């Protein structure tokens, strides 16, 4: 991967496209954690791809390409999410939920809905992308201990939701 990144940094678009395709599923999964609408996911992935192409030369160490890319992607997801939130009427917003109604039969969204916003991304990075807690701390500029306690709290949230629904 390192050589591919270096080639892409020197303007090799084929190498850049290969890199993006290798990471496409990860970007897609993370974006689906923010948006249930495929159009929104497509838009934010396009934005991330263009940003990555534009800024690739600023990446000093090719080894960190994936974490660098994911960091850009998370920032773009947050930006689009906030932009959409600001356009909604206050009474349409509900604490802890995404903007759109997500398919209730979809287990991915059932799980996401059970988690608070601050824990969703950590869950996706840990279980979905299998980053270590140390790597997640680096991506999100958090202490590893904070990542671990959020993972724990997320699991507790899921349990409590299940208890509530069973009653």
């Amino acid at each position, binding site marked *: 991967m390192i050589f591919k990144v270096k080639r892409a940094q020197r*303007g090799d*678009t084929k190498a*850049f*496209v290969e890199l*993006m395709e290798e990471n*496409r*599923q990860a970007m*897609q*999964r993370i974006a*689906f954690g923010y948006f249930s609408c*495929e*159009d929104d*996911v*497509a*838009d934010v*992935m*396009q934005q991330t*791809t*263009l940003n990555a*192409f534009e800024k690739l030369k600023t990446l*000093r*160490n090719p*080894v*960190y390409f994936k974490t660098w890319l994911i960091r850009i992607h998370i*920032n773009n997801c*947050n*930006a689009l999410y*906030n932009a959409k939130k600001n356009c909604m009427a206050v009474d349409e917003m509900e604490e802890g939920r995404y903007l759109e109604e997500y398919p209730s039969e979809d*287990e*991915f969204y059932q*799980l996401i809905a059970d988690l608070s*916003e*601050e824990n969703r*991304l950590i*869950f*996706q990075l840990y*279980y*979905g992308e*299998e980053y270590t807690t*140390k790597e997640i*701390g*680096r991506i*999100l*500029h958090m*202490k*590893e*201990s*904070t990542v*671990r*306690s959020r993972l*724990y*709290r997320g*699991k*507790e949230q*899921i*349990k409590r939701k*299940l*208890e509530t629904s069973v009653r």
Partner: protein
Amino acid sequence: MEERYTEQELKRILQSKGNEYEKIQKKMEETYRMIEETQQRKRGARKPAVWAGGLAAAMAVCIITLGISNPVLAAKLPVIGAIFQAVQTYVSYSGDFSKDAIPLAETENGEENNLVQTDQGITVAISEIARDDKSFYLGITMTSEEGFPKDFNRVKNDTEYVLEYDTMNCQTTGELVTANGKKLDMSGELGILEGIFIDDNTFQTIGYVDLSGYEKIADNFTYNFEITDIWSYLGENYYSSETTENSEMHYSGSWKFSVDVSLDKASAKVIEVNQTNEQGIGIATVTKGKYYITAEIIVPEGEEKDRYIVLIYDEEGNRLDSFGSNVEYYSVKDRKTDKITVRVCSEADFFMNKAEEEKLKEHALYQVEVNCNQ
């Protein structure tokens, strides 16, 4: 209560959504076409090289001399151990580093090292080092000519801030080089620096590089690193997980250093315990280093160690404070730890009861006393 989601289930569910989606596929293809067209336009617009006398394009070769760029500041390098003394009590990786501080101002031959770098109005100076068996600690001063934003100094200016230290974030690249030329990439280390503002212009910090996550570290090596960005949060953005354009203040530049390190591997002692209870939960070893102590857990086969927390108590029965962000390393600073008690709790019991020692003791799955002077 039975868990709805096992670890495997969580992975399976959160690794779905990786299928092909037509709209996403088309959008990505469109994006790649845009990028290719942009590149082709750039290539087409390039002027052909003009060759004259065998060499055409001007090629500037910059020899960057890394020297002490500010001799006046260099003369003001802090007294050795002073940064450790000032900062070590406040940071989350608290240790008595000042006792073992080694000056970095001079090599054995009396030549000065390049330890003071100034760029973008920020001077970064490294004046001392302490080390144990798996880490090294650098005493660092960051000075801003025009002063850092008041928002950076949360200890002083933010009434909601509860920590005793401030943090400065850095973007770094680096490598560890051994005498035989072997290199190990260490980019990202020193990413979060804990320290204190001694005034509006000066931040003192102990840069902590933990090598325990790397394999086969040599005893002696050179740590070459470059800081390319120094930054922190503005206003209330510190508390937000979202970043906006004006939420951070960055100082982008280049601060390059080279530090020789000799780890003190003899300073750590490993005590074999190798005991478990009937459920198969127990402790394999206790490792006591110069500044920390930790215990290696044994769990039943097939179970994950992450589901358990190891707690360590001093001779007086008081729980040791965490050492850094690594959850199961504990600080030995100012504590009697010749004899310790090690307890194992479930993750759930720990987070539920962590403020109540009696409940932790009651719910402990396993406990053992260990003599660290064996």
